[in-house]
């Protein structure tokens, strides 16, 4: 089962409060998740804390599932940071700004675990 979703990324106070302490496990916990509407989560058969694979033409990333009833159905939110940016749209369409919001993506259940910061960054050096 795959969910077609519109991905947006952005600040949370908790992600922000670890900005100057990115090596902390708390930064990882505050960034490596994806918020979905409860009905979307149950459609995927995923409970909070389980893992999701979010993929699109720009890449894929494994993050934990989180519930947010404030999200309309089909809207996925990942806090700004290395996990979200693994799958945002790099194209700036001539105005300098990559597509951090509104990226069509597919979401499915995964039994893999999210990579930690170091391991994720290492994938860029290969």
């Amino acid at each position, binding site marked *: 089962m795959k969910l077609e979703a519109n991905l947006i990324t952005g600040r949370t106070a908790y992600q922000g409060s670890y900005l100057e302490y990115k090596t902390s496990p708390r930064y990882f916990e505050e960034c490596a998740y994806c918020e979905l509407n409860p009905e979307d989560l149950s459609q995927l058969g995923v409970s909070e804390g389980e893992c999701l694979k979010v993929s699109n033409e720009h890449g894929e990333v494994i993050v934990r599932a989180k519930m947010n009833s*404030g999200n309309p159905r089909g*809207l996925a939110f990942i806090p700004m940071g290395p996990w979200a940016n693994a799958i945002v749209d790099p194209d700036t369409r001539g105005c*300098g700004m990559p597509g951090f919001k509104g990226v069509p993506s597919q979401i499915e259940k995964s039994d893999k675990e999210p990579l930690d910061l170091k391991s994720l960054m290492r994938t860029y050096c290969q």
Partner: protein
Amino acid sequence: MKVITDVVCPFCGSLCDDLTVKVEDNVITDIQRACILGHNKIAGVCLHERIESPMIRKDGELVEVTYEEAIEKAADILANSKRTLSYGWASTSCEAVSKAIQLAEETGSLIDSTANVCHGPTVLAVHEKGSPAASLGQVKNRADLVVFWGCNPVHAHPRHMSRYSTYARGFFTKKGRKARNIAVVDVRETDTSKLADKYVQVDPGCDYMLLNAIRSVINENEDVIPAQVAGIPKEEIIELATMLKEARFSCIFYGMGTTQSRSKYKNGDAVSSLLYDLNQYSKSVMIPMRGHYNVTGFGQVANWETGYPNAIDFNRRLAYYNPGETGASDVLLRGEVDSAIIAAADPGAHFAQEAVRCLAKVPMIQIDPYHNATTELADVVIPAAVVGVETEGTAYRMDSIPLRMKKLIDTTFKSDEEIVTDLIEKVREIKGGA
């Protein structure tokens, strides 16, 4: 024990200047009035792991070296590159920015700030239509309607609402929250929208349409609006437009929801056009919710030194600016960059994957107090003092008001300004000898 009052918080563009910090034996022991973001940043200076020593990558590992070795290596990279990207400079002082621009000019580099992934499109919108702005003091004292469009201050600027907007009590707004209406436009319910009198949930990427529908109502052309625009029923659009038209003084604070979604700079442009229409009837202003505490300052310094606010290319030995071509992400994606110097920002964490991959390929110098995602890709790492805590300096608030940040504790780390000054000197030495 030292008690330091009126401390300026070096985290977000709200630049709160009313903190009280207690210092005992050069350690910060108490911080009053800061929000979770500011508190963690200031307290973290003494608590979190720092980059203790300059480092150079050898055989894939960062190894500690002396400061002189690191400066020498960094200057060598800069002097021998054809197209250096100098990026960041938003969480530092205007004095450091000024030096960074000098270094970029002398090395023919391209220099860009974090506005590239933040309010860069806002700058473009200002070029197109202008920005009827005001100080946050004006908003506090006068605004009877505050609109948060595509921003979530409860999370990103936690004290903004109590100091300047939603709850602030001012000369004509003595009743604070009761003196004003709050409207929020966003694509999902947020902790900010929960506090609003009017919440409008716009379809993702459709802000531009909604802004223009509101303009139609303001200009008494509501008959042209269909039953629904951007997922919002016509009645609601009329309600929001009427709130704006009837307000004595309104301010639209706009955030990443406008700059990063589909229409990008055209959204800011549309806000500006909306204000033009509104100001025929009432008084209305717009202020961008700037993120890094001194990203506004970068724009100010760059403007007065080069004539351009960001994305400035010195490759032709004179300042050239064309965001979309000279933006940090654009030059990286085109594969033009052959070295990078990154300071007071973390593109490793905040650039899109393709741009990070390009950064990882080139020799990179990082200047930062803390180990972050960029450190994983850096080849020379130079630790810096935390501006606003360990060194003083000037920063500009989101409404372009300059404030002087204080030094709270002593440090052995050099400031960004000192590091860049040393780099300029070394680069001159290498180039002079060549």
